[in-house]
């Protein structure tokens, strides 16, 4: 911490040396300049008249959105059930697929750190990089529209999420217990079942419920690209500019999301 001595006898301290201060200042300058540059590139094609017009547009849409069309509600029950199934079945499929991937990716359980582990890590990164709605877009093109495309899309996206958190949990286990089980002469499978699995079970259950909650949220919009569920109704209502129906659908989605968050918080609280 540099201290300056004043001729009058006082002392003042500064957090950084003058050189350090210039370096920090220069770093900020570059960051700001880069942001401004990005802003200029991004807004090149923006038509500002539309942007300034936005409050009027918002007021207009807002006025059309009330009151919600309550009579549309019974028609939403079946799509809501589909949405729930997409999220739940997708999560179950992801759990089944991600457990082996996680064990192959964890440093202490992988059969080969040189060959198998990078492959498992790549599966996890690839799955995590691509949002479920993009998986759905692809799967609708391949399999045709419907609930099945949604389930597979949710499953493909969730493998990476569950796999990553689970393999980190496996790497953090207490090796002492594994060693103790192994010392009794247990086989590899028995070590896994009695030494490793009990240690990761609470984390695993928590991760799965957490992902189920996220999946409910994501499956409500998968229908926008044709993958079934309540998003399909949202898409058709938007396309026909039926704003009162859009309001009702958004309210139903919001209620579903809040409910699933509550359920998942309760379950995680009970487990941990």
């Amino acid at each position, binding site marked *: 911490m540099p201290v300056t001595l004043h001729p009058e006898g006082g002392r003042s301290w500064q957090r950084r040396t003058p050189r350090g201060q210039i370096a920090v200042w220069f770093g900020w300058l570059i960051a700001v300049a880069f942001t401004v540059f990005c802003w200029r590139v991004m807004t090149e094609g923006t*038509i500002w008249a539309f942007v300034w017009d936005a409050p009027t547009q*918002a007021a207009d849409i807002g006025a059309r959105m009330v009151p919600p069309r309550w009579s549309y509600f019974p028609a939403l029950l079946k799509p809501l059930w589909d949405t729930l199934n997409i999220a739940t079945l997708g999560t179950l499929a992801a759990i089944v697929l991600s457990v082996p991937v996680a064990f192959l990716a964890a440093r202490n359980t992988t059969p080969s750190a040189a060959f198998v582990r990078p492959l498992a890590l790549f599966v996890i990164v690839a799955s995590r990089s*691509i949002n479920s709605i993009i998986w759905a*877009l*692809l799967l609708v093109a*391949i399999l045709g529209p419907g609930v099945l495309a949604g389930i597979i899309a949710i499953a493909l996206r969730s493998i990476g999420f569950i796999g990553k958190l689970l393999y980190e949990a496996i790497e953090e286990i207490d090796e002492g217990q594994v060693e103790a089980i192994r010392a009794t002469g247990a086989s590899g499978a028995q070590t896994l079942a009695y030494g490793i699995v009990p240690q990761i079970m609470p984390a695993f259950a928590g991760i799965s419920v957490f992902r189920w909650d996220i999946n409910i949220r994501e499956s409500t919009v998968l229908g926008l690209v044709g993958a079934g569920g309540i998003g399909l109704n949202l898409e058709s209502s938007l396309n026909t500019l039926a704003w009162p129906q859009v309001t009702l659908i958004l309210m139903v989605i919001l209620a579903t999301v809040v409910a699933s968050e509550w359920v998942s918080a309760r379950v995680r609280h009970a487990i941990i």
Partner: protein
Amino acid sequence: MTATHAPARRWRPPPLIANPVLRIALIAGAAIYLALALGTVEVNWARLSDGWARGLRFVSGFLEPNFSRRWDDIVQGMIESLTMTVTSTVVGIAISVPIGIGAARNVVPRPVYYACRAIIAVSRSLQEIIVAILLVAMVGFGPFAGFLTLSFATIGFLSKLLAEDIEDIDPAPVEAIRATGALWPSLIAFGVLPQVAPRLLGLSLYRLDINFRESAVVGIVGAGGIGATLNTAIDRYEFDSAAAILILIIAIVMASEYVSGLIRGRVK
């Protein structure tokens, strides 16, 4: 000395749910739900067997991605996505720091706390894609709508995590600064922010990652970025171009995760 054997006992691991009635009820409920859910999933097998060929074409597209056919579109989309990511993350951070401080129970009065928590709840409960649809309807097509969407989503994410970090800080430095007679702004600047700065940097880098991934999504509904290019490629069944775009997205996410890991490692 004769060995006495205790009667053989079989040990069983304790069950995850201790209450047997609750356990059986949960298992039965899950089984009934699964049967009902699987029963209502309509699978069009004829359509599926058609899709098999397309699926194989997509997989072979992944093995031979075609970067050249839509190269100009890909470059344009990537530039939009990357600039959108940077600007929305910066603006998002700038807005979420004050809101995050306001949403920390231990440093602000109650009314401010509730107001900031309400903003966070609104931002978190609306999905990006729905916000994007509404914003495209308001400000028109293009990356500006995407920028607004991602900034809005960043606020909910970053403020919430920042607020939780501030609530967990060590109160002693804050107390020490307060004892010098410092006013509230100095208290925040010297007592609170230095304690959460490394975490804030880590969270910002993580959000940069997420915003890039999400920028590929908002394009599907017309908010600019690589998602628009991807949507066109998939709509035209050009699976080799789509595979090229997906490979680029995965590569950029991997690279940015690696770099942010390095930066976080140095800061800690």
